[in-house]
C-alpha cells in the first residue's frame, strides 16, 4: 500500500520541521518527504490542503480500564477514542484489576491491544506487587513483557525503605520510575485546600501533599541515580522544586494533565463532580505556573490523564463522585488551546504531545516523522473549533469538565503504521 499525503503543512518537532511538505508512505514506513520518490505511484492520495500533518500523538497516561473495569471502558472503545484524538502511542498506568504486576498480564494486554491494530500500547508496570508498596515486582521480566517504566499510579509507597530499594533495583537496569507526588495522608480530601474548598465545605488537599512527596522522591532519586519521571504536577510550589532539582543537574522529567492547564478550583462552581480529578485542580496562580512551566520546558510534556468513569459513578455528590476525566479526544484540542493562548509556535506546542512525550517513555519508534520512521501520523485541521459533546465522544467515559466548550483542532485522519485507522469530518 502506497499513500501520499499531499499539500499539507508538515510539523515534525523532532526534526524542527514546519513547512509545506508532502509525505510519502509505503507499507508501514515513511519513505520520502517533499519530492515524490522515483517510481512511487500512490494507491491513495490524501489531500491535506489547509491541514497540519504531524506525528501521531504520544500520550503519557491513558487508563484503558482493562483488565477489570470493563463497565467503565473497554480496550475497543478507548482505542477508538485514541484514534479520534490522533493518539497513536500511549502509556497505560498499572492500576487495573488485577494490577499490572505480572508479566503474563502485561503480555495479554499488549496482545489484545496489538490485535486491535490501533494505538500502540506501552504499559507502565507496577513498581510493587498489587501497588501495595511492600514487595518490588519482577521488573526485568516485566520489561521483557512490554513495560516501558514502573510506577504506582496514584498509590503511595508508605515504606520509605521499600521505595528506596525499588528505585535502586530499577536503577540497576536503567529502568524508568514514574511517580505521582502525593503524600497519602495529606491527600485525604477531594479539592485544593484553599478558599473554594473552605467555602464549599470540601475536604482540602494542601499543596504540601505534593511538595512533601516530591522532596522524598527527589531525594531518593539523587541517591539511587534512578531515572525519575514525575507525573501530573499540580502546583507552582511543586514545579519550583523540580526546576531547582534540574538546575542542580538531577535527571528528572515531569508532565502535567491537559485539564490542569485550563481549569482551577474556582471552576468547581456549584459542586460540579466533573471537576473532581486527581490531583485536584488548584488555584489560579498554580494553573498559570503550570502553563508557563510547560511553555518554558520546565514541564516536559502534557498528557490526557484519560480516566473514563461511568455516569452513575460521576452523578454523585462531589466528594463521592469517582475522580477523573475522559481525555484522549481532548488532548490535542487542549494542547492547541494552551499553545494558542501562550502564543507559542505550533512546533513547540506539538512537541509536548509528540517528541517530548516519546522521549520520556523511552521509545524511539514514535513521535517523529523522519524518512524511515514508523508511519504513525495525525492529520488535523487547526483552525476549526468544535463543541465537546457526549454524542461525539467515542470514549465510553463521557466525563469531562469541557462538555459544551468549543475547542480548536479537529482530527481528520489518523494513521497507524501506514494504515488509515480513523477519518473524521
Amino acid at each position, binding site marked *: 500500500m502506497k499513500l501520499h499525503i499531499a499539500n499539507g503543512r508538515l510539523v515534525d518537532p523532532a526534526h524542527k520541521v514546519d513547512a509545506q511538505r508532502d509525505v510519502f508512505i509505503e507499507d508501514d514506513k515513511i519513505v520520502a518527504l517533499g519530492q515524490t520518490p522515483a517510481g512511487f505511484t500512490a494507491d491513495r492520495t490524501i489531500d491535506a490542503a489547509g491541514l497540519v500533518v504531524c506525528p501521531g500523538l504520544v500520550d503519557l497516561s491513558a487508563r484503558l480500564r482493562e483488565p477489570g473495569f470493563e463497565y467503565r471502558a473497554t480496550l475497543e472503545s478507548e482505542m477508538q477514542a485514541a484514534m479520534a484524538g490522533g493518539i497513536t502511542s500511549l502509556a497505560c498506568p498499572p492500576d487495573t484489576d488485577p494490577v499490572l504486576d505480572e508479566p503474563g498480564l502485561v503480555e495479554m494486554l499488549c496482545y489484545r491491544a496489538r490485535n486491535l491494530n490501533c494505538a500502540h500500547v506501552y504499559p507502565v508496570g507496577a513498581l510493587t506487587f498489587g501497588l501495595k508498596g511492600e514487595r518490588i515486582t519482577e521488573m526485568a521480566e516485566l520489561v521483557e513483557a512490554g513495560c516501558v517504566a514502573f510506577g504506582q499510579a496514584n498509590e503511595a509507597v508508605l515504606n520509605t525503605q521499600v521505595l528506596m530499594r525499588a528505585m535502586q533495583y530499577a536503577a540497576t537496569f536503567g529502568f524508568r520510575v514514574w511517580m505521582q507526588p502525593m503524600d497519602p495522608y495529606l491527600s485525604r480530601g477531594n479539592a485544593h485546600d484553599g478558599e473554594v*474548598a473552605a467555602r464549599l*465545605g470540601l475536604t482540602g488537599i*494542601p499543596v504540601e501533599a505534593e511538595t512533601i512527596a516530591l522532596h522524598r522522591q527527589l531525594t531518593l532519586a539523587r541517591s539511587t541515580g534512578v531515572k525519575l519521571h514525575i507525573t501530573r504536577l499540580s502546583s507552582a510550589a511543586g514545579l519550583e522544586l523540580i526546576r531547582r532539582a534540574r538546575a542542580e543537574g538531577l535527571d528528572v522529567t515531569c508532565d502535567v494533565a491537559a485539564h490542569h492547564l485550563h481549569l482551577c478550583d474556582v471552576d468547581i462552581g456549584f459542586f460540579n463532580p466533573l471537576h473532581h480529578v486527581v490531583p485536584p485542580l488548584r488555584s489560579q496562580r498554580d494553573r498559570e505556573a503550570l502553563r508557563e512551566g510547560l511553555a518554558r520546558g520546565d514541564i516536559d510534556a502534557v498528557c490526557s490523564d484519560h480516566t473514563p468513569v461511568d455516569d452513575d459513578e460521576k452523578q454523585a455528590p462531589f466528594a463521592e463522585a469517582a475522580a477523573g476525566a475522559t481525555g484522549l479526544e481532548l488532548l490535542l484540542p487542549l494542547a492547541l488551546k494552551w499553545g494558542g493562548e501562550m502564543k507559542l509556535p505550533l512546533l513547540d506546542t506539538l512537541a509536548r504531545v509528540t517528541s517530548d512525550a516519546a522521549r520520556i517513555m523511552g521509545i524511539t519508534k514514535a513521535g517523529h516523522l523522519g524518512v524511515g520512521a514508523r508511519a504513525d501520523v495525525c492529520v488535523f485541521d487547526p483552525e476549526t473549533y468544535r463543541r465537546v459533546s457526549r454524542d461525539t465522544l467515542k470514549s465510553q467515559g463521557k466525563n469531562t469538565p469541557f462538555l459544551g466548550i468549543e475547542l480548536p483542532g479537529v482530527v481528520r485522519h489518523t494513521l497507524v503504521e501506514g494504515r488509515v485507522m480513523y477519518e473524521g469530518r
Partner: protein
Amino acid sequence: MLNPQLNKNGELIHLLTLEGLPKDILLRILDIAAPFTEVAEREVKKLPLLRGKSVFNLFFENSTRTRTTFEIAAKRLSADVINLNVSTSSTAKGETLLDTVDNLVAMQADMFVVRHASSGAPYLIAQHLRNTGREDIHVVNAGDGRHAHPTQGLLDMYTIRHFKKDFTKLRVAVVGDVLHSRVARSEIAALTTLGVPEVRVIAPKTLLPTDVERMGVRVFHDMREGLRDVDVVMMLRLQNERMQGALLPSSQEYFKVWGLTPEKLALAKPDAIVMHPGPMNRGVEIDSAVADGSNAVILPQVTFGIAVRMAVMSMLAGA
C-alpha cells in the same frame, strides 16, 4: 454562573445555601417567619398554606432534631409529611442518590427536605430536577456535609434580630469547630450579608478552614481576646464523630481553653446573648452554668426554628 437556587426572575425556588443570597431575600424570610411564631400559641396550630402538598424529609444522615422541626413546620402548614431515613448503607447496596430521587418524584413529591453527609448533595438533586424539567419540585437543604445548613443560619438570624434588633451595630463571635461546621458557614454568610460589621471566629488553628479570613471574618485563637465586648456568642457543637486524626488532644483540654464558662462570658457585653445550634455537649464546648444561664437563648432558637422553616417552605411553595 447561574445560581441554582434562584429562577430566572431572581425568585427563590430552592434553599441550598445562604452564601450569595441577596439581603432582601434573607430579610423577607425573616419577615414572613414573624407571624408564624404566633401560630404555635393558637389552639389550632395549623395554616392551610401547604394543604395537599407532599413534603419528603429525605435524611441520608441521622438527625432527630432537625427532622422533627421540619416535620412540625410542614404539618403546621397542613402538608403531608413523609419521613425517609435512607441510610448510606442502602445506597451503597446499589440505588444511587438520583435513583432514590426519581422514585420519589414518581410518587408526586412537591418538596424535598434533604440532609446528606456529603457537601453539595442537595445541589445534585436540584440540578437533576432542572435537567429532568421538574423545577416545580423544591429542595430545602437541611444540612449537607460541612457545606451549609441554611435554615439553621436563618433561625439564628431571626433570633439575633429578635433580641438585638439591628444587625449593623453588632459584634458577633462564632466559637468552636468551624472547619467541620456547616452551621458556621451558613451563619457567617448570613451575618456578613446582613451587614454585621464585625464577625469573629475563635478556634484553634486545627479547627479552622484554610483561608477562613476570605469569608470576611476576624480570626482569634484566644477566647479572652475574641469574646471581648461582643454582643452575640454563637457556639458550635464539637463534632466528635467527624474528628479524624490529630485535631485536638482531648475534650478536657478543649473545654479548658475554648469552653464557654461564666468567667469567659463575663468579657462579653453584659447583655450578650449566647446561642447554640444543639445538641450541646455540656462540659465540652459549653459550661452548664452558661447553657442554663440568663444570657442563653438556646431554647428560643428552637422555637423560632419552626417558624423560620414554615416561612421557607411556604415561600418556596408560593414561588
